[in-house]
């Protein structure tokens, strides 16, 4: 077992107001894993708001197609007659009277305040890109990964602090590029986040020129940044574990992040290669994905999904890991089947490499291959089922405390059950013929991927006291949970109904189709729910602001948890541990008969008096 980095090697961070360079080193170009983790959290939180707003614009369009937005949109009389009636009408009239080249951004993308079809395509493309690459991964892997790995394994920092800082500061320009692409001529990428060739290859097909190029550049930067993070995580977990922190004494959060980092390390090069080929096709005139250049459009799909399916587990595994930790803590009970949990995560990671073809059942791929991918896909459902049952097993016989992190963790489990079960429909090749590319799949992946937000919030409520040294308000946290849970389900569950009716995804105006007419009411219901879901985040914003400003100070271990991060002060000092901790047991010794309390920290040496009573 390797030694943790000695805390003495870290400079002190006491900040004096006059020390400007030190401000930059502490808050901006910090090498401290805790600060970098917080930076990732702030970045992904900002991107979450952007991605959410894009979704609301889409929902408006789907519920009331080609209708101007409220407040900023022009009036119907103005659209019908051309005569301005309101103050906004006059502004729109002036904007729209300009030449195409001189028109402002709003007038080009939302003339009179209504979304255009081209802009709608950009909206869903960028919504997915932002949510997948710039929210979930930076929040869970960048944020919690950075903050928790050294603390939970008993190390002073990451193995490569400089690489860690570089990883964050490459993610920032990547995020800036992807947002900036909205404002270049032709607008942001509009080929869907899957960017299927040949639509993505030629500007004349999608109408987007530099938007796609910037999208490629941004993801290339991000994938380099994530690679740096992955190498760092793997090295740190292998080398810097405290004495006694054996592999099977690691908290499941760390196991999940370790497996995720391996997936990132192996999957990202495939994405990078595919992106470069697309870049060559677009700018150098090669034809890797163009039939007229001797290429093959399906090659892009194979490459993209060979990366894309492991990516799904990159997104969901960290949430599974921290959910396991939180369920165990608040059930005051050891996790049920620790080894099965680790093994099922390993098998999910392994199987995620051999299921990519289930995205391509209707693509023209040999149907015999479809059968093979259906079988592997059904097999991957088994470890998911094991995890769910083990979570239930953890609750059984517990002493359950329904705190806000616990509620969000239970919400994650509940959504994961729905998302997992709805996946079985798509796995069955004949059923997939009908529901492929419909809202059924939109419902499915939102239950899995958007459901991760419950894991993110669970982690935020759980570790916030450790990160910032102050407690969040429990009552507000519960209000936030119940509203989010309610509106999440009223937003995403009815999408199954749309899918059953055959409602295609990525369509701009569902009222153009006769067979979808009866379902338009559901589209409006979903839109109302989505707006409520957005507003339901207000209690969280209030809670975070209030707590950081006036919150009660947190003790070192407010939840009475066992893992090492709770053995140091909240927030932990630079270098984390005063002396390298020694680990004596696994992370889930709750309600152990050896002690009178119902928790037994990993680093606590037991003396004979502790066991006297029992």
């Amino acid at each position, binding site marked *: 077992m390797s030694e943790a980095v000695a805390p003495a090697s870290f400079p002190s961070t006491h900040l004096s107001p006059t020390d400007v360079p030190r401000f930059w080193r502490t808050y901006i170009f910090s090498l401290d894993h805790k600060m970098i983790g917080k930076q990732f959290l702030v970045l992904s939180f900002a991107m979450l708001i952007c991605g959410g707003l894009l979704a609301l614009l889409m929902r408006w369009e789907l519920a009331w197609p080609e209708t101007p937005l409220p407040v900023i949109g022009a009036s119907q009389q103005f659209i019908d007659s051309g005569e301005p009636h309101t103050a906004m009408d006059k502004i729109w009239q002036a904007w729209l009277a300009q030449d195409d080249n001189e028109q402002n951004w709003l007038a080009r993308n939302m003339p009179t305040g209504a979304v255009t079809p081209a802009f709608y395509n950009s909206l869903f493309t960028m919504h997915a890109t932002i949510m997948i690459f710039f929210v979930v991964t930076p929040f869970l892997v960048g944020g919690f990964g950075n903050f928790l790995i050294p603390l939970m394994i008993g190390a002073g920092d990451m193995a490569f602090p400089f690489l860690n800082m570089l990883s964050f500061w490459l993610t920032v320009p990547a995020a800036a590029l992807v947002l900036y692409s909205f404002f270049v001529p032709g607008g942001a990428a*509009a080929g869907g986040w899957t960017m299927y060739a040949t639509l993505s290859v030629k500007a004349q097909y999608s109408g987007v020129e530099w938007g796609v190029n910037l999208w490629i550049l941004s993801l290339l930067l991000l994938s380099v940044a994530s690679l740096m993070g992955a190498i760092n995580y793997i090295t740190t977990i292998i080398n810097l574990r405290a004495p006694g922190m054996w592999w099977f004494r690691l908290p499941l959060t760390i196991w999940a992040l370790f497996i995720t980092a391996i997936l990132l390390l192996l999957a990202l090069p495939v994405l990078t290669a595919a992106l470069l080929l697309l870049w060559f096709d677009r700018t150098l005139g090669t034809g890797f994905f163009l039939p007229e250049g001797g290429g093959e459009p399906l090659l892009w799909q194979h490459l993209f999904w060979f990366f894309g399916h492991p990516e799904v587990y990159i997104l969901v595994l960290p949430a599974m890991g921290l959910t396991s930790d939180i369920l165990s803590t608040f059930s005051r009970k050891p996790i049920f089947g620790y080894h099965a949990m680790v093994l099922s995560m390993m098998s999910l990671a392994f199987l995620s490499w051999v299921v990519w073809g289930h995205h391509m059942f209707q693509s023209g791929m040999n149907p015999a291959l479809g059968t093979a991918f*259906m079988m592997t896909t059904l097999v991957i459902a088994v470890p998911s089922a094991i995890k769910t049952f083990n979570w239930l097993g953890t609750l059984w016989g517990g002493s359950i405390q329904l705190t806000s992190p616990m509620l969000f963790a*239970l919400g994650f489990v509940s959504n994961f059950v729905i998302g997992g079960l709805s996946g079985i429909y798509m796995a069955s090749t004949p059923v997939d013929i009908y529901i492929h590319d419909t809202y059924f799949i939109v419902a499915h992946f939102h239950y899995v991927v958007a459901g991760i937000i419950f894991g993110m919030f669970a982690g935020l409520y759980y570790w916030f006291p450790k990160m910032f040294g102050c407690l969040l308000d429990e009552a507000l946290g519960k209000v936030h949970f119940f509203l989010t849970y309610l509106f999440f389900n009223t937003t995403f569950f009815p999408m199954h109904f749309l899918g*059953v009716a055959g409602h295609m995804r990525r369509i701009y105006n569902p009222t153009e189709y006769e067979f979808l007419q009866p379902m338009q009411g559901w589209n409006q219901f979903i839109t109302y729910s989505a707006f409520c879901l957005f507003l339901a985040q207000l209690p969280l914003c209030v809670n975070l602001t209030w707590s950081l400003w006036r919150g009660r100070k947190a003790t070192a271990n407010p939840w009475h948890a066992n893992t090492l991060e709770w053995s140091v002060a909240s927030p932990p000092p630079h270098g984390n541990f005063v002396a390298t901790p020694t680990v004596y047991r696994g992370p889930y010794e*709750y*309600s152990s008969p050896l002690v009178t309390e119902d928790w037994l920290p990993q680093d606590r040496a037991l003396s004979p008096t502790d066991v006297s009573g029992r």
Partner: protein
Amino acid sequence: MLRWLPEDVSPYGAGIDALFHLIYTLTAVVFLGVTTVMLIFLVRYRARDGRRAVYTHGNTRVEILWTIIPAAIFIWLGLLSKSQWETIRMTMPQTATTISITAKQFNWEILYPGPDGQFGTSDDKQVDNEIYVPVGQPIRVILRSKDVIHSLFLPNLRFKQDAVPGREIQVWFQANKPGKYEVPCAELCGFGHSGMKGWLYALSTEDYRQWQREQWPQTAELSIDAKPSTTEGAVWKAQAQLIFAWPKDDGAGTAQ
């Protein structure tokens, strides 16, 4: 939820819908079971003064049980799906009618071979977005795309197939009830994707002949007379031939 499925008029759609119903029942039972158990646990095992949680790390027997049971169900579902998939996608029934559908931004170009049954001859007829077919007969479709990937979707026929540029994909469908059915594009194909749609007109034998006479008035005798129609699935199954097969050793000893 299942009442929203559009009316099915295809020979194999009943099988797909039955599989859908089966998965629906299974998942509903599992979902309700898991949710009920979770809620019961949350109430039954809520924290109370003086009660300590059970100290256990798991139970191997239970864990093996809840690994094997789902695995068995999934394999069974896989085998059920496999046989249906093979009849729908890996076999081509004997067809009297072949049409060519070429997708482009943002239309379906339907090419009919005309009385001689051959493409590339002077009696070919092209119509945009209108597919006329005789009812009760399998129709062979040669699916192509001129620019980007599109997807031919016939909700009422439980049919969907991507059209890929550079490829010629042979598929088939059959409408067992006369009527007019919507044909949307299901794969994002550009800014005009929404609204890219056509109509399938499934015509009775008499109406179909009438339509043929209108299209090709000079032709006295129509060579593409409709075969005896059937609404039973058995006929197309019996006449079907395998169009995709697992690679077999041809006996020549070569690996390829």
